[in-house]
């Protein structure tokens, strides 16, 4: 139990002290959690999705609970990249953990401009690109559903930054390996998956969709088997580092993602159920490694394939 286990993982040339990140949109700008945990214990955290200018997001209601999960339609409300740099970064720039910026836009040019601004900020370790947002050029269907879009967008972003670029994939596709392959072909440093699964709840009292936006993204424990499957598929078919996310709520599920092929994982909605759940998960993974006499967590990455 007291054994030394190695939780460190490398992505490109960044070393994470452990594979636990917190997911965009569920961890604010980091600050808010300082009261509940020591942020330095995390491998890193990913801030709320940043757009070029401040966004008000969707009208309420924006969230509704579902069995072992929730739907959200925040509509990517955020302070915008400039305010983020000016007003939020100063408060988190002395941490001993990695800060990853999550970004989104409605056309390629927006993504690129945000990237350029973030590129100057040394404190940002990597950029996670949320392609699960409406592509205005394509009439509002998501960037992330079309491999060609993902290839083009990722290539342009890569040309504008030397920071590692992570492409965050939507699960609402027939074959996620095609999108992951497009990201790889465009020289993405990693893919993260999964974003939320589109869902709807109808309020039978009003007979209308409960969310003002009608549909929302399903997240939480309920979806973890879908995320694990998709990570497994991408690991099997595409040679690119994977960050696993979707419904992780304890060390066992985190380990399932790692065994399926994820080098790192992100904790999302589970932060709402327990603000310091990531710390418990780090401890749980450490205990598992010690119990199983495994030296390093990286020995587990994708192990479900070889022993399958």
């Amino acid at each position, binding site marked *: 139990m007291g054994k030394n286990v190695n939780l460190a993982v490398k992505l490109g040339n960044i070393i994470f002290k452990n594979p636990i990140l917190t997911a965009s949109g569920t961890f604010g700008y980091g600050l808010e959690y300082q009261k509940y945990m020591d942020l330095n214990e995390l491998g890193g955290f990913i801030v709320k999705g940043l757009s070029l200018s401040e966004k008000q997001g969707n*009208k*309420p209601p924006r969230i509704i609970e579902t069995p072992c999960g929730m739907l959200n339609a925040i509509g990517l409300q955020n302070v915008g990249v400039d305010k983020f740099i000016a007003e939020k970064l100063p408060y988190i720039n002395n941490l001993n953990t990695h800060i990853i910026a999550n970004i989104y836009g409605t056309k390629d040019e927006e993504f690129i401009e945000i990237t350029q601004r973030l590129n100057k900020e040394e404190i940002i370790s990597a950029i996670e690109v949320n392609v699960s947002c409406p592509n205005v050029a394509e009439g509002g269907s998501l960037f992330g559903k079309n491999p060609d879009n993902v290839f083009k967008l990722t290539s342009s972003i890569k040309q504008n930054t030397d920071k590692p670029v992570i492409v965050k994939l939507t699960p609402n596709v027939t074959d996620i390996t095609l999108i992951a392959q497009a990201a790889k072909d465009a020289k993405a440093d990693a893919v993260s998956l999964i974003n939320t699964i589109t869902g709807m709840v109808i309020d039978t009292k009003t007979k209308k969709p409960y969310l003002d936006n009608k549909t929302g993204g399903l997240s939480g424990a309920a979806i973890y088997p879908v995320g694990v499957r998709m990570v497994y598929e991408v690991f099997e078919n595409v040679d690119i580092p994977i960050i696993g996310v979707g419904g992780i709520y304890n060390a066992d599920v985190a380990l399932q993602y790692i065994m399926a092929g994820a080098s790192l994982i992100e904790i999302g909605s589970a932060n709402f*159920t327990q603000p310091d759940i990531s710390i418990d998960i780090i401890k749980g993974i450490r205990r598992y490694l010690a119990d199983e006499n495994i030296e390093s967590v990286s020995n587990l990455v994708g192990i479900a394939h070889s022993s399958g």
Partner: protein
Amino acid sequence: MKLQILQNEQIAGSVMSIKIDNPGLFTARAGQFFMVKINDFNYPFLRRPFSITYFKDYIEIVYKIVGEGTSMLAKKQKGEFIDMIGPLGNGFEIVNSKKILLVGGGIGFAPLRFLKEELKGRSFDFDSFFGFNTKDEVCVDFGNIATMDGSYGYKGSVIDLVKDVIDEETLIYACGPSVVLSKLSDICLEKNAKMQVSLESRMACGIGVCLGCVIETKNGMKKVCDEGPVFDYKEILWEKM
């Protein structure tokens, strides 16, 4: 933070009072709330927000059984532990005024009972007005009571009971269904009174990170959990509630 349940009892119709041991770790303001984890597993998935009704050596929450989460909470036994995050939110801003009124609709009296203690602690004068549907639901032991069916106290809505008392020197602290608050707001505007309202909204995190609980205000989207739950009534776009 896991705290021990000292008592969990029915106090009226579908209204329960749960008392929780306070290890003395924190202080709280009236109008603040806790995010309560109903079970130590993933169902229900989200915590539930509840106002603080009393806060000293123990913490009291008074809650109405309305759905799955509150039904489960009602089954918790004395001695069990319950996981709570808080106190959260801004709480009422306590200021003195010629005429202070506490106005509650239904379970909305909950934060006002804590406020009453705070006002008394500062020796501020105030009057209280609470409305319920029927006698069966009445669960306060102070103030003027109205019931819709007249089975207890004044017959009619709490608005009818309180409206003639309101004037321009009045400061109201209110909590209740948004239709009640909205009507109160009209009266306060008309009479040029002040009012702080405690609002409700579905919450996921309760700590300002998910942006799920926002309401539309004159100053843009505001989070009920950490920019509220108490707002100046003039800021609210009542037609959007």
